């Protein structure tokens, strides 16, 4: 299914912490990222793609456009999705992640705003976030092509035009051409996969020094 990227504005991360940021010893374990779509009308969300950077758990809340005039409520569409099976070790820490519409808890039909809530309970990591965030909506369905009339309404079989003298029978020519084509396809398909393995350039392998680039 095709997808189309939706331009989004990712606001800076906000750390949620109890107490004063400067005086307390620990680092924040919860970050919130707001994603707005200033130039796009409420759309149907298809996919969220990002690169993880040491975030352990992800929750997503969405605010949808409502038909009434009241502003939409925030609804949780993904709760505590685990990105790192063990928050203290490296597994999953830098992976690319794709989240789809069908994994969400609620309908994503008219998305106005997204809020990503990142949690990293382990004190081992200096910082954590998600990077390269991209939102996709449903792409246009493949345009229904209008078939040319002669494909959908085949003309009833006509009598072939009378053969011009001297020319070979067209049906015989076409069957011979087809046989030749089949032969070339066979040869193309059956060539051995073993490579020759040339490592020199035209027989010359005179090298000076190794290159660092």
């Amino acid at each position: 299914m095709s997808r189309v990227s939706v331009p989004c504005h990712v606001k800076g991360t906000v750390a949620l912490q109890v107490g004063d940021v400067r005086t307390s010893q620990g680092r924040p374990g919860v970050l919130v990222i707001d994603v707005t779509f200033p130039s796009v009308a409420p759309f149907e969300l298809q996919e969220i793609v990002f690169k993880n950077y040491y975030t352990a758990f992800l929750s997503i809340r969405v605010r949808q456009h409502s038909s009434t005039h009241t502003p939409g409520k925030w609804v949780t569409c993904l709760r505590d999705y685990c990105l790192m099976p063990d928050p203290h070790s490296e597994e999953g820490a830098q992976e690319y992640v794709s989240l789809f519409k069908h994994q969400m808890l609620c309908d994503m039909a008219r998305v106005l705003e997204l809020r990503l809530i990142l949690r990293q309970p382990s004190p081992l990591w200096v910082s954590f976030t998600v990077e390269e965030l991209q939102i996709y909506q449903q792409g246009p369905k493949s345009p229904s092509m209008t078939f040319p009339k002669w494909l959908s309404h085949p003309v009833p079989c006509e009598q072939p035009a009378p053969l011009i003298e001297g020319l070979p029978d067209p049906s015989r020519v076409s069957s011979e051409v087809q046989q030749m084509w089949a032969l070339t396809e066979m040869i193309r398909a059956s060539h051995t996969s073993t490579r020759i393995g040339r490592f020199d350039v035209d027989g010359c392998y005179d090298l000076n020094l190794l290159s660092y680039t």
Partner: protein
Amino acid sequence: MRKAQGSWEKRILKSLNSMCTELSIPLARKRPVGEQKELLNKWNEMGTDEPDLSLFRPVYAPKDFLEVLINLRNPNYENGDSLSFRTHLGLIQVPLKVKDIPELKEFFVELGLTTGQLGIDDSTQVPPELFENEHVRIGQKVLAEQDGAAAQQYIRQGSPTALRADLWALILNISSQPEDILYYEQLKTNVIQHDLLVDSLIYKDVKLTASNDDYYFVFEDYLYQVLLCFSRDTSVLGHFAYNSASPPKSYIRGKLGLEEYAVFYPPNGVIPFHGFSMYVAPLCFLYHEPSKLYQIFREMYVRFFFRLHSISSHPSGIVSLCLLFETLLQTYLPQLFYHLREIGAQPLRISFKWMVRAFSGYLATDQLLLLWDRILGYNSLEILAVLAAAVFAFRAVNLMEVTSLAAAEAVLADLSTLKVMPLLQIFLFATVT
């Protein structure tokens, strides 16, 4: 990790380049016809050649690589100055996920106490009717059916000596087709036509390691035949798709910077280090035909051995193996670990060389082949780390009494009398934790 691998590779390239310029030997040159003829005649006895290799030195040794691994740091990892739960007591400071003993027990379930093993249940005291005969019969059936998946499952309990060569070929998917033999002959021609600096490194390595080993010196000629061809084999370049390393590049003389004259050096992209020839030596016991021996070694390399000398976060990569070893030792032999650390003998400094060589040259050959059976069966190198920890556990009493790194090394210098499978079984399944 990738950055570290990149800078490590740069160091190796610099070292090779400086060797090149110091000795004024080109990286590669075409052999004159007379020399080509001479080499062709001597092909089966290259060991008798005694070229002057005194000026060559190996590009790097395992202990240099260990220093690089010890210095791996994640910039996002908070280590803190004071000792806390987050400090790694061992040498490796990267918090990769490694299996603990319950997970290892599940992974290596066929090594359990209630399952028959070759290496334990085929000893002379055990009557063969109990396990060995039946196991051999099943092995013959697996070979007759040519079932690769069944072979991999079967070999977890060890392979009978008579069937081992065929079983390994089945698991590694090697069959000697005429085109494979032709390919090997083509590589041989490449060796004869071009002389590479890497060849001298290979010669030196074989002379330093395999030729001095009581078990392997007879195979010296085979080793040259395999390793020289290996470095001409461009199909090995394919494994860089899943290896964190990249092959070194060079340009044809006079055409620096022109992409159409860029080539890989050596043609297979792998620069041998001190001890590299030990990957091939045990295989010589199983295969006597050079082209088959070559294919088996190549497949073993691109499946397993390359992980032992490149930096990556793969669970079978050397960094994970080192961390697994240290974690096992710390968790299950804490007193020993603490004692060794106090006397300045970090256990990894001793066991690293065992793991990098997959224990080749340290264990007796029959024991080594039983170990490599399990590597193939479980498709993982983690068993090397488990065995290293098991060896420490076995010699723990002696190690508690040593007071220096040299003495610890002496206690663990000779592993040739060890029986691999009982050690593994006891460590995994019979140790009271």
